[in-house]
């Protein structure tokens, strides 16, 4: 038998395949556009969900922290008036705040060993409380009525008590708090008494510290001392173990000064002459005139200057400069905006890129599944449409790999274009919604690293989806018998 020499049968290079793919796509531009559209929508959805999630989270977190800083004066005033209550101590101990821990250690006079023991006790107390918070409301009502779980720990003093409680719990098909009777007994006899005692020690220490600071400040209100940035006051605070650094003191001072300025501003309205002129300028009736309204009205330098001129007329008020007034009003409006963003929520620790609700995750999954099916369908249609073309090419000497490559390239090109469009679309939409919801805050809280991660991730997800979707149709196309070319349409 005569052999057939095939050494010069050419496998077309990727460049030529790519060129042919592009020509083919150009011809079937509508169909390619559909694939690109489907893909870009799915990718846009992913990018949007991820980016908006992180954007809203960052904005809220930022707003929350900023607001918290603005509340320092109030926090310190209350800390200087009474000792922390037991639930507050528990809450602070659970946040793991280093400054608080240092304060408590000093006031309670804890040794290092006791600090560790206190930490363990705090965790048990939390577990114990969580247990009662986690069981159904009716069961809780049966077990402890509406008592605070911590107040009934004393009832688990003896083994008999615990067994009786275990029976009642068993009837409700529940487990014991902390898992077992032994641990509950240990908690009731060791951990909880230690926790209660430690709290008392902390409170006593704090009260002593407050008394010492009181002695220094005399009759002057804490807020006034803060506003005056009194060095003796700072020294007293630091000497008594309050977690107050010089830096922090300065911030609280500024806050106190702003607070006092706002109060003095309120006195302006007491003067009927000034009030009437302001009200006329602001176009409101004089009895509605109030500091918040003034703050909102004072949006420009000229308005602030007007108010400053009026303030200068009143001898009883400190004549605030226009720049200061404008700054106060900006701060006020910003605080208002932050409050609107944060609302009642308390954002937890900063979440990662992928922190999303289960429902959202399912939505994304389904959207990609739909996208996968959609692209597979479009590609299958495209291939069915080109049966005779593919078969003809095979008659002309094209190999399976060439045909496969042709369609893989087509899918990849569509994948790249669709993903790029999708990423931009998704980010743009998320940004737009962020702008609407949070205003300028998004610019401050946006993190380029997250943005890059989300873009790259969405882009490659799109490519992978396009590749997956193209696999089956491309394979079918490459296996097509050249005989099909003979078929008359």
């Amino acid at each position: 038998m005569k052999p057939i020499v095939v050494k010069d049968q050419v496998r077309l290079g990727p460049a030529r395949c790519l060129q042919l793919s592009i020509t083919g796509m150009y011809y079937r531009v509508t169909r390619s556009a559909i694939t690109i559209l489907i893909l870009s929508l799915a990718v846009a959805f992913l990018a949007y969900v991820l980016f908006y999630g992180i954007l809203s989270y960052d904005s809220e977190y930022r707003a929350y922290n900023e607001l918290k800083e603005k509340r320092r004066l109030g926090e310190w005033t209350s800390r200087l008036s009474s000792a922390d209550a037991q639930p507050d101590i528990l809450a602070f101990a659970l946040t793991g705040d280093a400054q608080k821990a240092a304060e408590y250690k000093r006031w309670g006079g804890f040794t290092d060993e006791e600090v560790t023991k206190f930490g363990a006790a705090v965790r048990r107390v939390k577990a114990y409380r969580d247990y009662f918070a986690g069981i159904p409301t009716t069961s809780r009502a049966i077990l402890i009525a509406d008592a605070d779980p911590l107040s009934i720990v004393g009832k688990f003093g003896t083994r008999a008590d615990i067994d009786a409680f275990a029976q009642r719990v068993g009837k409700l098909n529940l487990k014991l708090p902390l898992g077992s009777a032994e641990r509950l007994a240990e908690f009731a006899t060791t951990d909880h008494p230690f926790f209660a005692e430690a709290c008392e020690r902390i409170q006593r220490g704090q009260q002593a510290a407050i008394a010492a600071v009181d002695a220094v400040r005399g009759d002057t209100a804490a807020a006034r001392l803060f506003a005056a940035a009194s060095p003796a006051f700072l020294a007293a605070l630091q000497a008594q173990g309050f977690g107050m650094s010089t830096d922090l003191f300065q911030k609280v001072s500024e806050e106190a000064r702003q607070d006092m300025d706002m109060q003095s501003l309120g006195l302006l309205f007491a003067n009927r002459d000034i009030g009437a002129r302001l009200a006329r300028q602001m176009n409101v009736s004089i009895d509605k005139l109030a500091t918040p309204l003034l703050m909102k009205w004072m949006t420009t330098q000229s308005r602030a200057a007007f108010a400053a001129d009026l303030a200068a007329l009143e001898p009883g008020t400190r004549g605030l400069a226009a720049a200061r007034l404008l700054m106060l009003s900006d701060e006020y409006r910003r605080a208002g905006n932050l409050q609107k963003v944060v609302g009642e929520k308390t954002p937890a620790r900063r979440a990662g890129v992928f922190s999303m609700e289960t429902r959202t995750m399912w939505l994304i999954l389904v959207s990609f599944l739909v996208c996968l099916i959609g692209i597979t369908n479009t590609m299958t249609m495209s291939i069915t449409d080109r049966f005779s073309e593919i078969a003809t090419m095979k008659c002309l000497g094209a190999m399976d790999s060439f045909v496969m490559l042709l369609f893989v390239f087509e899918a990849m090109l569509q994948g790249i274009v669709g993903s790029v469009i999708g990423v931009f679309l998704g980010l743009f939409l998320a940004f737009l919604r962020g702008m609407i919801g949070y205003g300028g805050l998004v610019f401050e809280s946006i993190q380029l690293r997250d943005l890059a991660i989300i873009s790259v991730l969405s882009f490659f997800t799109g490519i992978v989806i396009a590749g997956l979707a193209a696999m089956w149709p491309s394979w079918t196309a490459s296996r097509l018998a050249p005989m099909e070319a003979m078929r008359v349409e």
Partner: protein
Amino acid sequence: MIQSTDKKSPLEKSIIIRTLGLVKSYGMGEATTFALRGIDTLIYRGEFIAILGPSGSGKSTFFNMVGALDAPTKGRVLIDEVDIAQLNAVELAFLRCRKIGYIFQSFNLIRYMTALENITVPMSFAGVTPEEAHKRGMDLLELVGLADRWSHRPIEMSGGQQQRVAIARALSNQPKILLSDEPTGNLDLKTGGEILEIMRKINKEKGVTIICATHDLRLLDVCDRMMWIRDGRINKVEERANISIRLGQIGGAK
């Protein structure tokens, strides 16, 4: 085996395609249907052979076997003394690319390519450089009389012009065999006649073996030999010389 009484010189009478006991069946067991029931035939180099037969006769199946497009159930097809059943995918691609040119009833030009691009596609599969392919493509367009329309896409051409481009494409890698399935089936009488003229010219001038399945009786006038297939068997084989054909004309046609 079919005995030929061809009067060509012995040098030209070498065999290019030989089929041995070709059987093609579909389905299994009792449901088996036979498309071909055993065909032994010889096709000689440089011959113009017409294959005739009613639809369902196995004509197309035979055609696909000879064109290395389909594998027989039993029997062998030898092209240039090479059994095509022995060839792997690459060798088959090579064979289809270099040895055989295909002409289809529905032309099958690639819609988004110009006439010249359509002709150069098989050349790029054969590794011809773009410059060389361009030159050869233009020569072929010249041969089929369409040199001035090289930049037109199939949609801008008439059926006859498309078929001429298809013929040029089939010839692009200088094949030894031209397989043509109803080349005039989609064309009107006049353009069909022109296509047959071109095919005759190629057959005579380039010495390409042409195998042509057809219903077009005018083709019988240009072919050397005709083979009737009926019920998967060769019904009869006739030399053109032994048959008297008179061509009539239908109103108005010149």
